[in-house]
């Protein structure tokens, strides 16, 4: 599935809950979360995941390392989620191109959108580094979903299931700071 329609500003979203996002990640069968810290998801997702211990959090120094690790895990039949910031995703474009897209591997990326305005969709952002993200994913043919408010959390499990079923990458764009 590609992105939703993007016409017009969106209604103020219902605040995202980190607890419900983690519940969906766990219910998706994800055993490993590979992460470079991202300020949007730092407190609401990464810290509670580390405290919980399951899924196992693997800290990495750079996001493209995570692409390789998730690929190795996918070859072993293990589900993983790469939790990063869009700056790191942009830095890893060649790894995403080669490993996820050209090798058709289920690399699942949860990407915090640094400096995105909560009331705007990513394409409408005043920030260049935010509004280019979806067009780049379109150009690469990578499926993505906007996770802007609590009702969007239900997309997470099916997005991960679909990525593994079809052996293709997916990006979940976290548009506001989860509580």
């Amino acid at each position, binding site marked *: 599935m590609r992105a939703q329609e993007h016409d017009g500003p969106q209604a103020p979203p219902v605040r995202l809950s980190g607890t419900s996002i983690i519940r969906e990640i766990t219910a998706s069968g994800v055993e490993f979360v590979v992460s470079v810290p991202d300020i949007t998801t730092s407190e609401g997702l990464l810290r509670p995941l580390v405290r919980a211990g399951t899924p196992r959090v693997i800290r990495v120094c750079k996001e*493209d390392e995570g692409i390789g690790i998730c690929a190795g*895990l996918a070859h072993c*039949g293990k589900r993983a989620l790469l939790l990063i910031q869009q700056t790191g995703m942009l830095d890893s474009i060649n790894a995403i191109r080669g*490993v996820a897209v050209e090798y058709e591997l289920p690399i699942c990326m949860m990407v915090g959108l640094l400096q995105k305005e909560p009331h705007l969709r990513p394409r409408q952002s005043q920030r260049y580094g935010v509004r280019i993200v979806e067009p780049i994913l379109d150009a690469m043919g990578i499926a993505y979903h906007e996770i802007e408010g609590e009702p969007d959390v239900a997309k997470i499990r099916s997005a991960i299931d679909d990525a593994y079923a079809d052996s293709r990458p997916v990006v979940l764009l976290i548009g506001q700071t989860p509580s």
Partner: protein
Amino acid sequence: MMKNDDCLRALARHVTDEDIVVPVYTAAFDWLAIRPHPLNYLAHGAMGLASSHALGLALGRPDRRVIVLDGDGSLLMNLGSLVSIAEAAPRNLFHFVCENGTYEANGGHPIPNRANVDFAGFARSAGYPAVHIFSDLKIFEQQVAAVLSEDGPVFATLKVTPSGPQNRDYSRLHGADVRAATKAALAR
């Protein structure tokens, strides 16, 4: 210094049918001639990522040894992976670096500061519990079995010279059929 293929031949004598081997570029073409096997994981997608693929494999299959045959130029593109591997600490990961001082697959240009760079020093500082350097084939032959029986992650620099001309047909590394065979072998 050791010839790359002599060195890999010595290693291959201690690699079992259960082991997963992740060879990179120049080492991969030598390795394919020495040990063709469906558990050779050859497709890395982007230069430098072999050690990271290997970490994923080691975490995903803790019942198997994962042996990565990295290049020095490749590892320089992903030095942070040394730190990530040391923290994740998979006991089944064996990280060999074939150090020839050049980007051999990209025209043979020297790696930066090749006279001084110390890969074993990087690994030691990153936190690998076991680090080795080999430059003499006889000593490597004597010690490689012991190295492969240590608790990982283990790091070893292999000081090598090129083996000679290679058939660098990259479809042998990351063709769709090669990837499918690896995936099938790992699923067994």
